[in-house]
């Protein structure tokens, strides 16, 4: 059994998910985690699939999807590892302000420096407003107040607003 990451990116149209998962199903693949979204009109999907088929066979079976050049499909093996449990609580980093180069790279570098691991990220540009939202796992040893202050200092230099708040799960 191998675990493969299948990435499909390209021009959006109806039916892409059905085709990709149909091919994988016929190869005996079992979908584990997946994510898909539309980014500025472009289809973007990553599927993690476990299968007994070898990687070459999966690549070959998916190749037809890329034939007309509107989609790019790639397959790569991912090592099977136990998923690391976050050591500490999760936080939500929220940034908004006027769009300018470097907002994401500069602020995520501050998070990385504190040992924070970003587990989910989305950014949006609407008009002049740029918004970044990132879910961050912090190591138990990291001080969220210190990180929040560093983020505020950095954000002030970039001319954007920032907040770092504990992410409370909705348990229903």
């Amino acid at each position, binding site marked *: 059994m191998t675990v493969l990451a299948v990435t499909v990116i390209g021009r959006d149209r109806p039916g892409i998910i059905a085709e990709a998962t149909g091919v994988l199903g016929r190869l005996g693949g079992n979908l584990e985690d997946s994510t898909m979204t539309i980014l500025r009109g472009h289809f973007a999907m990553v599927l993690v699939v476990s299968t007994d088929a070898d990687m070459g066979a999966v690549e070959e079976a998916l190749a037809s999807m890329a034939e007309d050049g509107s989609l790019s499909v790639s397959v790569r093996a991912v090592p099977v590892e136990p998923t690391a449990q976050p050591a500490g609580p999760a936080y*939500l980093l*929220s940034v*908004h*302000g*006027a769009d300018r180069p470097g907002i994401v790279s500069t602020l995520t570098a501050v998070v990385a420096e504190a040992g924070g691991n970003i587990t*989910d*990220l*989305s950014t*949006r540009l*609407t*008009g*002049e*407003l*740029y*918004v970044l*939202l*990132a*879910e961050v796992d912090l190591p138990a040893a990291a001080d969220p107040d210190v990180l929040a202050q560093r983020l505020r200092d950095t954000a002030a230099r970039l001319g*954007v*607003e920032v*907040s770092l*708040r504990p*992410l*409370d799960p*909705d348990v229903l």
Partner: protein
Amino acid sequence: MNGLLPELPDGQVRAVLRAPAQALADPCSEVDPRDGSVVTLAADLLATQLLSPGCVGLAANQIGVSARVFSLDVTGHPKARTCHGRLVLVNPVVVTATRLERGREGCMSVPDLTGDVRRASRVTVTGLAPGTGDLITIQTDAFEARALQHEIDHLDGMLFLDRVAGAHALHARQVYL
């Protein structure tokens, strides 16, 4: 006299600022509710809110005035339960806030996005009436409670973008109906 709101002059419709305007990020200052400029501001907020379709509340810094004043009216809103009608509060304070609930909200200053935000669904808010300076206490729930907290956040220089519930809790604004 209209419920809790003293008689106000006719207001002028003002332009509503959009993020990333700096005035939306700066906390507002407390003001004297009896000051003539505050009465004018109250009337302008109501006039602007009334003319903006789907707008249930407006904070002074959304029209570029750094004053702790907002207008609110959730009358007829499908998610409202308790409703105090047309309100303007000066120097408002959230006194109690309980029972967090997640709900989707939008903002005149962030017109293209909505967000899922956890807020208290029961609140007590106090504030002063424009003109008279009378103390007003609002006990409310559901959408009116959410809207009050949203407006008071504005006065603290915060947007709902600072409070969304997760990395995927922002949505492109849908046009309903």
